[in-house]
């Protein structure tokens, strides 16, 4: 079997039964933005703008490196962007412009 087939056949989240270390019984209090992100997911699903299964599929499509390196809610927010673009609800440029405005606002700068 072509060795890259395994990358396509096994989604990065499909880890049941794979070797793994001792469980680290960690937890953290959600940061405010993470809680807003979770609430956003619920609201998007309620409206079926992005349903929960689409979100899961989107996270899978980020691929192994991003799934491994982004945190749980970081993955979600990037996936929301991708799916909203896919559905023609937003364009990448709209989001980029808005992010620039938000950042400027945070820095107390004039919005250009």
């Amino acid at each position, binding site marked *: 079997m072509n060795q890259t087939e395994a990358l396509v056949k096994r989604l990065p989240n499909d880890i*049941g*039964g794979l070797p793994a270390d001792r*469980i680290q019984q960690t937890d953290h209090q959600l940061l405010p*933005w993470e809680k807003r992100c*979770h609430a956003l997911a619920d609201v998007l699903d309620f409206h079926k703008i992005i349903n929960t299964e689409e979100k899961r599929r989107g996270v899978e499509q980020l691929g192994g490196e991003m799934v491994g390196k982004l945190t749980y809610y970081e993955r979600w*927010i990037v996936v929301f962007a991708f799916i909203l673009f896919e559905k023609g609800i937003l364009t990448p440029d709209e989001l980029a412009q808005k992010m620039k405005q938000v950042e400027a606002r945070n820095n107390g700068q004039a919005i250009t």
Partner: protein
Amino acid sequence: MATHDHDHEHPKSADEPAPGYYEIMETALRELLIDKKLIGPGEIRRQIEVLDSRTPALGAKVVARAWVDPEFRARLLANGRAVCESDFGISFYDDTQLIVLENTEKIHNVIVCTLCSCYPRPVLGLPPDWYKAKEYRARAVKEPRAVLSEFGTDIPEDVEVRISDSTAMVRYLVLPQRPAGTGNSTEEQLAALVTRDAMIGVVKVNLENRNTL
């Protein structure tokens, strides 16, 4: 430029770190969706209140009631979601169903979601990080007894360990066994014994592991 009803904005104190890349993305997406009237300005705030209201204390009440009331227990095991809604007002704000898994002398249930992080959020709140992390998800379906040992739980060889892997619209709540020596406890006292981890199934309920919350 029009002012926006920036949902959940709060003045930043000098000590708070500046919002990072992903927080900026979250803020931007939320504001764009509100601008386009795809979501209402108060919806996120409201859903945060919903989420904050769901904690393991809700599940603990359900468990305690099942321990003292056999008729409630039977109804709960027949339709978890309907009975949580009707008897405790625990609304299920998503499309999920709930199956309550009863632990007995012969069967010890444990829940996991190997593919993602399915968890009975309406009745337990948000899952702990370890439940969503690779180690638990990979090993719980392959060596559940070793996993339980890491939580300090040893299940006798003649008891079946039954691990439920969530993949669809059903969520699971483990109904732990009532510990010995609680015959005179009130329902409230019983609920105080029931921890989140007992309702996931990685620990049993015992008199030493009281909730401090």
